[in-house]
């Protein structure tokens, strides 16, 4: 079953060629005509020598010479036509496939991206697609041309002298047997090469993203050792591939020559016994000699085809992954932002224990709840359930009474905006980064959001809001990045605002200013605030304590502080420590 699916991968890409059918037809015509002209040109030369030159016919020389000139120009033109015409369909296929791959990857949920290293995804979007392009650009055409050429020559041979013709045809058997065996092994090893290239890309990616951690610990050698090992493994696998194809290519080349020797031996014997004329034998061997090139290039093209099929497998592997999180039919016209967790639970695929179970929590429109819990208690996971960055594995989450899974993703995610603790900023202008969630924001709204987040420092950047902030905002400090992420979430004007420990990297004074401004914002939207500190908790109307994977207590801050020892331990700085004493 699997092999059927696999071998059809390349075939499944045919729809990408559909818009280019006319160009494809032209390519085939040009290719065939080009080959025909290529065959005719030497015939004209022969005609000139055998005709006008030999017979002293000066008058026929010029027209025939001009014919040769014209045919020569025509051949070049046909090659040009083929190469020029194929550019569009071939690049069109590659570009469209890459666009689709990217679109699909953006739809696949977090659970997919947790598992797949971006190096592997990247190698599919670049290396694999260019292999497919090369196959459709050259391989396929030459494969068919070669087969036609081989078929024609063999038909001629059979026509000329069928017993010897059968002999030549018979040598196709070992070639086919070899090809089939080669194909199986080559496919395995080329898949391995492509996978290992992806692994290597992943290591490169990590070495670049983690450069500061590597530097901080001086682990250059350690990281290099890992990379080197993977690079050498790839080297070894490619060498296996090289040896395999070297053996195959050579055998494929030797077989026609051995056939030639047999033809010579048997043909000469036949001439000896009068079954064949010398002229026919000469013509026959000349034709057999012509088989050499198409047969041996067939080996190369088959290898290219194998790689293209493997590449198609790898690309389709991603394209065939169904997005586990897709939207429902409902669009919230007037969202109020009434969020309820109804027995919600979450378990990572393959994990034994659920991260969350039986979570019951209600946040009324305009209300703000603080989620408090120990490190790793599942606070971030809880907040991710609302915009469906992760999907509940038990129970449900509702907004205004609708299961979030029944809402369209666009609607849901415009109702909910999250400011993450680790803000992701893209290599784009400040403006573009801020307007992620609200592309139509005005300058005034931008300024308001930046003021709330205490992030007006961006106006002082060299190009103001048009300044590109580096990869992940690398050239900004942690606090600055967090404030931009906060401004982004505020600018989205959501009904439900999720703040996932967004203020952790701010200094106390800035934090106080941000909190004062946030109080304003949170007064009319529903808020879910992950908090580690009492100051953040005070933004909320009520607190939910997350413990043992579920909400154990809901209440007001002072209430819980007085009533729940666990809560007190988590939040009260003075519980077991008196700051005065500590600083003494």
């Amino acid at each position: 079953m699997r092999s059927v699916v696999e071998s059809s991968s390349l075939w499944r890409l045919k729809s990408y060629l559909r818009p280019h059918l006319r160009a494809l037809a032209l390519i085939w015509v040009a290719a065939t005509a080009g080959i025909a002209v290529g065959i005719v040109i030497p015939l004209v030369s022969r005609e000139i020598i055998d005709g006008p030159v030999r017979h002293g016919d000066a008058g026929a020389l010029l027209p025939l010479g001009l014919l040769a000139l014209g045919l020569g120009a025509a051949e070049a033109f046909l090659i040009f036509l083929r190469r020029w015409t194929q550019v569009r369909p071939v690049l069109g296929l590659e570009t469209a496939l890459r666009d689709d791959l990217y679109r699909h990857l953006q739809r696949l949920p977090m659970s997919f991206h947790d598992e797949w290293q971006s190096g592997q995804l990247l190698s599919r979007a670049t290396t694999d697609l260019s292999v497919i392009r090369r196959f459709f650009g050259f391989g396929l055409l030459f494969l068919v041309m070669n087969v036609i050429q081989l078929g024609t020559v063999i038909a001629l041979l059979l026509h000329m002298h069928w017993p010897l013709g059968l002999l030549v045809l018979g040598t196709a058997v070992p070639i086919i047997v070899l090809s089939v065996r080669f194909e199986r092994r080559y496919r395995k090893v080329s898949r391995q090469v492509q996978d290992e290239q992806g692994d290597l890309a992943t290591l490169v990616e990590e070495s670049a993203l983690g450069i500061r951690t590597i530097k901080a610990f001086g682990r250059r050698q350690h990281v290099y050792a890992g990379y080197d090992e993977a690079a050498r493994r790839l080297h070894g696998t490619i060498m296996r591939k090289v040896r395999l194809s070297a053996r195959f290519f050579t055998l494929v080349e030797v077989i026609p020559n051995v056939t030639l020797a047999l033809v010579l031996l048997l043909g000469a014997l036949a001439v000896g016994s009068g079954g064949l004329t010398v002229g026919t034998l000469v013509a026959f061997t000349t034709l057999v000699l012509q088989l050499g090139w198409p047969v041996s290039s067939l080996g190369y093209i088959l290898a290219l085809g194998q790689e293209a099929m493997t590449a198609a497998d790898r690309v389709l592997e991603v394209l065939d992954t169904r997005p586990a999180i897709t939207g429902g039919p409902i669009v919230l016209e007037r969202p109020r932002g009434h969020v309820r967790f109804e027995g919600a639970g979450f378990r990572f695929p393959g994990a034994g224990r659920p991260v969350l179970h039986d979570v019951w929590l209600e946040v009324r429109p305009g209300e703000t709840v603080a989620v408090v819990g120990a490190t790793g208690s599942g606070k971030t996971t809880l907040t991710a359930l609302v915009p469906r960055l992760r999907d509940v594995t038990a129970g449900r989450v509702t907004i205004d009474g609708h299961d979030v899974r029944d809402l369209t993703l666009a609607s849901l995610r415009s109702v909910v905006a999250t400011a993450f603790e680790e803000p992701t900023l893209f290599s784009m202008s400040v403006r573009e980064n801020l307007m992620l969630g609200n592309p139509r924001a005005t300058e005034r709204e931008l300024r308001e959001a930046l003021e709330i987040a205490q992030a007006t420092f961006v106006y002082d950047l060299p190009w103001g809001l048009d300044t590109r902030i580096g990869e992940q905002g690398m050239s900004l400090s942690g606090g600055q990045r967090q404030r931009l992420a906060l401004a982004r979430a505020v600018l989205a004007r959501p009904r439900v605002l999720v703040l996932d420990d967004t203020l952790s990297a701010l200094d106390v004074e800035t934090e106080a200013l941000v909190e004062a401004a946030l109080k304003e914002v949170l007064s009319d939207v529903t808020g879910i605030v992950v908090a580690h500190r009492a100051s953040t908790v005070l933004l909320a109307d009520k607190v939910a304590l997350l413990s043992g994977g579920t909400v154990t207590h809901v209440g007001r801050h002072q209430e819980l502080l007085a009533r729940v020892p666990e809560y007190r331990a988590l939040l009260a700085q003075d519980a077991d420590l008196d700051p005065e004493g500590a600083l003494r």
Partner: protein
Amino acid sequence: MSAAPDPAAPPGAAGVPPAAAGWRGVAAEPEPDEPRGRAFLLLDRSGRSRRLLGALLRPHRAAIALLVVLIVVSAAAGLAIPYLVKVGIDAGIPPLVAGHAPATLLAAVGGVLGAALLQGLTRQAFLRLSGRVGQDILLELRRRVFTHFQRLSPAFHERYTSGRVIARLTSDVEAISEMLGSGFDRVVTAVLTLAGTAAMLLVLDARLALVALLPLPVLVLLTLWYRRESAAAYRRTRETVALLIVHFVESMTGIRAVQAFRREERNQEIFERLNADYRDANRRSMHLSALYMPGTKLIGNVTVALVLLYGGWLALHGSVTVGVLAAFLLYLRQFYEPMQDLSQFYTSVQSAGAALEKLAGVLAERPAVAGPARAAALPSGRGPGGGVGREGVEFRSGDGPPVLHRIDLAIPAGQTVALVGPTGAGKTTLAKLIARFYDPVAGRVLLDGVDLRDLDEATLRRTVVMVTQENFLFSGTVADNIRFGRPDATMAEVVAAARAIGAHEFIAGLPDGYHTRVGKRGGRMSAGQRQLVAFARVFLADPAVLILDEATSSLDVPSERLVQRAMATVLAGRTALIIAHRLSTVEIAQRVLVVEDGRIVEDGPPDRLIAAAGRFAALRRAWLDSIA
């Protein structure tokens, strides 16, 4: 703060963002890859990449010579086959017809088989050897570029972006590997055939030969044109694919934000535009070779026709014999056919050349924080004590105003110092100077009396370790990640480190305990859990000087306490620099430095500063209010 939003004045006095701005915004510094102004990567077009190519090929000189021999033998064996067939027919058949023994025929058949075998053997040897040479070169190139990237400073990486690093090490290396795999054998045969046939043509008839070689200058001109155009086109391909990769990697890395903010549509738009740019660049180079390759074919075909006409005319007048003309035409065909192989190869050389240029550009980058010419040793005897001194240190980024103004500071070995102050004051910059992520613009940073710039990297990194709020987890298990602090640590030591900072409980609770794979960048762990792993890492690294930059910001209060308690033990006898906004972290410090606007405005033991009622006292009051 840190390297700070580069406050550099806009490049150029124009003060107007270039039109290209758009969504990408305007880079405060010139793009590393875009030849803008005095951009550094494309300065030298050929010299640098040619030198790199030479350096890569040099170790394989012997193998390359052997390859040429193999090709020649293989080609000779290949050429012998038709000749032997001819001998078999011409000389082998008459004895048969006459009823004699088929000795000559058998010899010829044996010869064909032998030649086929020889050709096969040499061909296989060639394929294997050339494969090995090519792969060895690639491996060496990968190693060099990877190591070099690792050597370059964080400042370089901030500017270059990880996407570009990935593009260089994947897409560019592959472009070179394509060239290495593309018909080196045919080039050698082509060159040999060309030389041989040219000689034969001259021997056969000098007049005809001159006509036949007449179009060569045209061919040279065509090739020069192609070289110039395709070099530019392939360079563009490398640049556009790099941008594509940068965007791809960034959106996959930040997929959570992408989905949460419904960025998909806009991203798709941007990606499709970049993809279209890449397609256009590719189209240009493919169009160029669609002109160049038939162009060489056309020149060859026209020459054949000209020779036919001229030769026919000569033959008619009896100046050349028909036999010579026939032979001449055959050879002429052989002369212009290999041109196709050569131009094909030239195309892949051009493509690889553009990639090589990019890689050579990377290799030519000087590490901004370079190793010393001669490494100094730390004062021995008691091991690194970790005393840190700074004399008149100044730091600025780019051409901007200084982030730090002349700072003189001495931290005795074993002291725990807290750095406090508002965001953007220069605390992280100060810390990064001690970890030598940057070098000061003026002044020096000393470790036990030795200038940091005189220490070799291994010594420096063993002595000074910095933990920041971004805790990068590498793919692998939790244990692997802790062991990053000391790769030779035993499992028991790893567990002990985790226990000491209070991470053991949560790790033990993971599905496979310490052997749980962390997933892509620890995707399944919370920020706090990742910080704990990072702490275990630094605990294991056990450096003499420890810098903690907001390293506990994501922990809940009890976890933070636990870490602090562990740190109190760890820090005993160690020099430490702690940066934290939450002053609870500062409470283990013996000395507090208040940094404001790149200056140290207060310096002293915490209780004295509190009593003095200055900036620190105010900060502390604000903090106490916030936790009340």
